């Protein structure tokens, strides 16, 4: 068995999220060093605040200020901080019930070691130097022995409310394509296109995914197809993709390689875009060092009869 193919894959997205009135007030408050909770109809104060009562599902909107000091209700010592976490030195995760609140907020607690942390210990907010209206405006909590500070009783109305957050997310993977697609990619490196034949219905799938979607069985018999093929259908692309150095308009087509029972897709070149047609016979064009065909160009053969490819549309 050939070596398993692997490549890094990064999935990254800056999620842009709008805030409702309650979350907007809370996060704006953090920017202004004010911690807000929301009152429930039975008189509890939820921090962090939510728009609906988690017990009754009633609308909540009465914001009240709570203290930036509080008590640890549970904790866990994190000796190896991971990417994105609030501190890059060992810290405790903690649920902290702020003074004036009935529920606890999750955040990091900066402490010298696990011996310095216990449930019931007193802590206070350490504010981030740069604050934008996000949960990370609380840099972390820190141990605090002092008195509970006076609070002004803010009602949650600020000038210039924060109405949205951008939450970047990044996950790192090592992608491996599996047996069938590895064989396909490996064959491309010698400029061959290899599909797999279903043992039951005898169809040849290109690129192979390891299973026949009609029969639900494993495919494994490798079959070389092409290199020539027939355009079964196509579209004309008029919008230039970012980072793609291809002049528009160009044609993107489904191409049934000779011997294949499934069309794959590729770009058509070497012919004006408005002369591409169903039935056009094409062949792959490889560029120096390319790991797959750069595009397909006309072979000059007569067009294929519709009946020869109608099942592959």
């Amino acid at each position, binding site marked *: 068995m050939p070596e398993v193919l692997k490549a890094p894959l990064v999935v990254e997205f800056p999620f842009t999220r709008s805030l409702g009135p309650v979350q907007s007030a809370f996060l704006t408050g953090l920017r202004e060093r004010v911690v807000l909770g929301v009152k429930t109809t039975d008189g509890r104060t939820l921090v962090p605040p939510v728009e609906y009562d988690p017990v009754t599902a009633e609308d909540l909107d009465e914001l009240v200020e709570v203290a930036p000091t509080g008590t640890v209700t549970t904790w866990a010592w994190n000796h190896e901080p991971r990417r994105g976490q609030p501190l890059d030195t060992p810290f405790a*995760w903690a649920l902290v019930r702020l003074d004036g609140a009935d529920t606890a907020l*999750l955040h990091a607690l900066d402490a010298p070691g696990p011996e310095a942390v216990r449930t019931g210990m007193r802590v206070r907010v350490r504010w981030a130097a740069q604050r934008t209206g996000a*949960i990370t405006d609380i840099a972390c909590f820190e141990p605090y022995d002092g008195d509970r500070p006076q609070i002004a009783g803010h009602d949650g109305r600020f000038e210039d409310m924060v109405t949205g957050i951008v939450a970047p*997310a990044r996950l790192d993977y*090592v992608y491996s394509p*599996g047996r069938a697609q590895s064989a396909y990619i490996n064959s491309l490196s010698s400029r061959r296109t290899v599909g797999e034949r279903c043992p039951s219905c005898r169809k040849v799938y290109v690129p192979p995914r390891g299973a026949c*979607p009609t029969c639900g069985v494993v495919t494994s018999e490798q079959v070389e197809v092409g290199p020539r093929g027939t355009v079964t259908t196509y579209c004309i692309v008029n919008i230039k993709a970012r980072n793609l150095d291809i002049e528009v308009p160009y044609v993107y087509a489904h191409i049934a390689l000779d011997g294949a029972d499934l069309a794959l897709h590729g770009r058509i070149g070497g012919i004006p875009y408005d002369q591409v047609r169903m039935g056009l016979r094409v062949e792959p064009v490889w560029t120096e060092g390319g790991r797959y065909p750069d595009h397909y160009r006309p072979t000059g053969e007569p067009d294929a009869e519709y009946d020869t490819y109608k099942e592959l549309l």
Partner: protein
Amino acid sequence: MPPIRDIAVVAFAQSDHLRTTDELSEVEMLIPVLHAVLDQTGLKTSDIGFTCSGSSDYLAGRAFSFTMALDGVGAWPPISESHVEMDGAWALYEAWTKLLTGDADTALVYGYGKSSPGSVRDVLTRQLDPYYVAPLWPDSVALAALQAQALIDAGETDEAALAGVASRSRASAATNSHAQVRGSVPQGEYLVRPLRVGDCPPVGDGAAAVILAAGERARELCERPAWIRGIDHRIEAHGLGVRDLTDSPSTRLAAERAGAFERPVDTAELHAPFTSQEVVLRKALRLGEEVRVNPSGGALAANPIMAAGLIRIGEAAARVHRGESDRALAHATSGPCLQQNLVAVLEGDPR
């Protein structure tokens, strides 16, 4: 509403759960399991009335991966199919409701997950509240550790008792050839204190499938069907600081609605990826020492995400099929610190 027709789990199959399956795509990992479960009943994919799956694109970083996995069930010409972005246990719930309506007599349910391409501790942060929690990237072990510490503070367990749960689970898994971690395993260092390596589930890839059938069809397909006497799932507030982490009221309510407390069960397959969660679940489900808990080894022996809950139902059902249990409870969980919980009660015909 009482079930209008009896529905049973009639077959169960699972993969060998492995740390990595680099050489296989998701569908390549899944197909042998689908064939194994079909072979048990003699059914072909074209005989199945409804198909439902559970998986998550975030695990392997493959967009719409469930559509590619459908190649494994023979989805052309079109079949009646659905998918949940949840553990396959929830897909089973959907299939159960479909069979209740009478629209289908048989259902194929599967769940699969490849955790090896990514970092599952980081991946699972993406299911958290995106405003207040996810930006802090608290990983799944950290959140479970907060729950474990809450239990220790409440006097409900201690580190030695948690180690006992770990060793009992892995010892039980010694006879489970599919399990990833078996036999004696050291508790190891703290991952996030108070949880040590041994308190946490292995990270791995795997798949599972079951077949459900209604009424007489179930008796034709299986000598001793595992009748689903009740099944229910409940959810708790997403805010961790709102919840009492030492209890699981959603599990208790789901169990009550599933009829779990009407008569004692002899077996319980609990989806407790962390040792501390077994403590919570035993209390919520009022399981006494006489109940055989996780004879398969449970999620501490193999925790293929999106399949591990379905495996609990499958393992419980398989014990009924084999005559090793007459009334078994199966539990599945999803979300941080047992946020969402599903309970099913399975019974064999009286002997």
